[in-house]
């Protein structure tokens, strides 16, 4: 029995002295519970909306105030025209629009009935449905209040789901999966490659050779780029033909943006590779530092607007967040570069930064 206990006590010591294991055993569960419990929620608050009040009377203003003080909504755009409204939707700036017709107040006073239109961005069908429900509930509450006060004021709500009238949940889901898969293959796989050379000891030999660091880095990325392109093609085709994703925008744009995203993912992978001492560490950093934030903070499952500011900021630093916007824009909304210049520009910047950092890291640290 003593032998057995001697062995057990050794095993305990191994675990307690291994920081990485401790982090997984204690750190991760705590972090996850906190994250999921407090922060990552499907309840929406401060969702970005636009209100187009073509009437501007007492009633519409009152209703607008109700909506905006509910905590669910935050007015981020003031739009005066339909074009501006459409533009805001295309850029992904707003998730919901409330439109009051010019005769709102008048209609209520005269005929005792008025319409208000609620337009949701259904490229994310869950969010759209929830927001529309919140808004409808508020309108209804307002209506009932006024009825009690003796005014007859049935307000009819017209709802419209943009981009995805049938509210197919697959529309919100497939782009997210594409983002995830490309990041997984491109980043995680490349993150191992340099770490492997370091582990095998062949890195030194490459460094002594006339090959320049940028050549080594781009050379290592190239086969992975080719493979990832192939992968991406399969994922897109599956999304379209098996899951019925629309392809309303330009194929060329989708290809360009996807290659850009892959480049960012690759350069991230390589950057991790230069930092990691061995393959195991590389995979660990990829999993924790890339995959988890991508799943949790990029907005593909949990809406980013409901997250506290620090998490939103972190989410903004993740390439997946921007690519998600881009795919939805191109495939579902059918928009072009003029609406997507911001996320595209950010991805270009990220690619340059990470390739630059990798090359620099390479030159400095040779172990």
């Amino acid at each position, binding site marked *: 029995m003593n032998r057995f206990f001697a062995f057990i006590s050794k095993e305990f010591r191994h675990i307690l002295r291994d920081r990485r294991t401790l982090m997984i055993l204690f750190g991760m569960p705590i972090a996850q519970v906190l994250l999921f419990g407090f922060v990552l929620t499907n309840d929406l608050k401060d969702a970005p909306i636009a209100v187009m009040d073509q009437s501007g009377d007492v009633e519409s203003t009152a209703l607008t105030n109700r909506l905006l003080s509910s905590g669910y909504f935050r007015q981020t755009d003031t739009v005066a025209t339909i074009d501006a409204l459409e533009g805001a939707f295309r850029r992904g700036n707003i998730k919901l629009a409330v439109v009051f017709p010019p005769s709102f107040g008048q209609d209520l006073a005269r005929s005792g009935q008025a319409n208000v239109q609620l337009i949701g961005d259904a490229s994310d069908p869950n969010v759209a449905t929830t927001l529309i429900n919140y808004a409808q509930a508020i309108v209804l509450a307002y209506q009932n209040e006024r009825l009690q006060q003796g005014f007859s004021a049935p307000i009819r709500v017209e709802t419209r789901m943009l981009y995805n009238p049938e509210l197919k949940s697959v529309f919100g889901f497939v782009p997210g999966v594409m983002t995830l898969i490309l990041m997984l293959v491109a980043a995680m796989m490349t993150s191992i490659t340099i770490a492997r050379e370091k582990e*095998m*000891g*062949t890195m*030194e*030999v*490459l*460094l*002594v*050779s*006339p*090959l*320049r660091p940028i050549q080594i880095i781009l050379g290592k990325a190239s086969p992975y780029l080719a493979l990832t392109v192939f992968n991406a093609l399969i994922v897109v085709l599956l999304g379209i033909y098996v899951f019925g994703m629309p392809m309303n925008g330009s194929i060329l744009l989708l290809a360009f943006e996807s290659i850009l995203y892959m480049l960012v993912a690759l350069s991230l992978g390589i950057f991790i590779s230069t930092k990691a001492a061995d393959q195991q560490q590389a995979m660990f950093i990829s999993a924790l530092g890339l995959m988890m934030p991508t799943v949790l903070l990029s907005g593909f499952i949990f809406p980013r607007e409901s997250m506290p500011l620090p998490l939103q900021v972190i989410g903004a630093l993740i390439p997946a967040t921007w690519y998600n916007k881009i795919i939805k824009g191109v495939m579902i909304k059918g928009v072009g570069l003029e609406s997507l210049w911001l996320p595209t520009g950010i991805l270009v910047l990220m690619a340059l930064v990470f390739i630059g950092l990798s090359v620099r890291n390479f030159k400095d640290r*040779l172990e």
Partner: protein
Amino acid sequence: MGNVIQVQALTRTFGDFTAVNKISFEVRQGEIFGFLGANGAGKTTALKMLTGLLMPSSGTALVAGYDVARYPEEVKRTIGYMSQRFSLYEDLTVRENIRFFGGIYGLSTSQLREKTAQVIEQLGLEQQAGLLVRSLPLGWRQKLAFAVAQIHEPKVVFLDEPTSGVDPLTRRQFWEGIYEASARGITLMVTTHYMEEAEYCHRISIMVDGRIDALDTPAALRQQFKAVDMDEVFRKLARPDQPVGHVD
């Protein structure tokens, strides 16, 4: 014949720690120069500076006429290198390895073809040319790695502990290859912590704590320290206060 390597007060510090402390020496063409010292004495750091991998903190080093601080790229092009852990890719074949290294050292397609055939013939690896390096016995891998390090006909070949973890017989065979290269006019700089390998060199230097504490032919050093073998020379150098016993 001239000095192929000229080192003058070469120094490298890492923060407060001085890894290489003002070392100076010269190596003639065709010489087999042994760079000895205990682990941590600064040999690898010095070697990294000479191969253009690390910038010196101060001092100069000229390798094949190029200043390592100003022209590291040119240095890399004119030297060959064989590292401590074997330099060949185990999951590539013999031929693929030769072609890869020849390629990154700038050999043209026709040169590559020629050289590949040459190396394979010289090593007698015709049967194994298409086999993965992994399947070659250790001694053969070493010889191949050494041949590959010379594929671009460098003037100097640096060997960083090339025989670590290898049995004495294989080590002896490897050194025959080194002699052969030296006879062809190639200068070889070998680092090792096996003191007996020192006997195989024309001249050696012994590094202790970042300095070169001894620099001469093996025979001269044995006489100078009144020692029976290089091991004893080293012990007398590294731990001058301790009594020296012989391990028989």
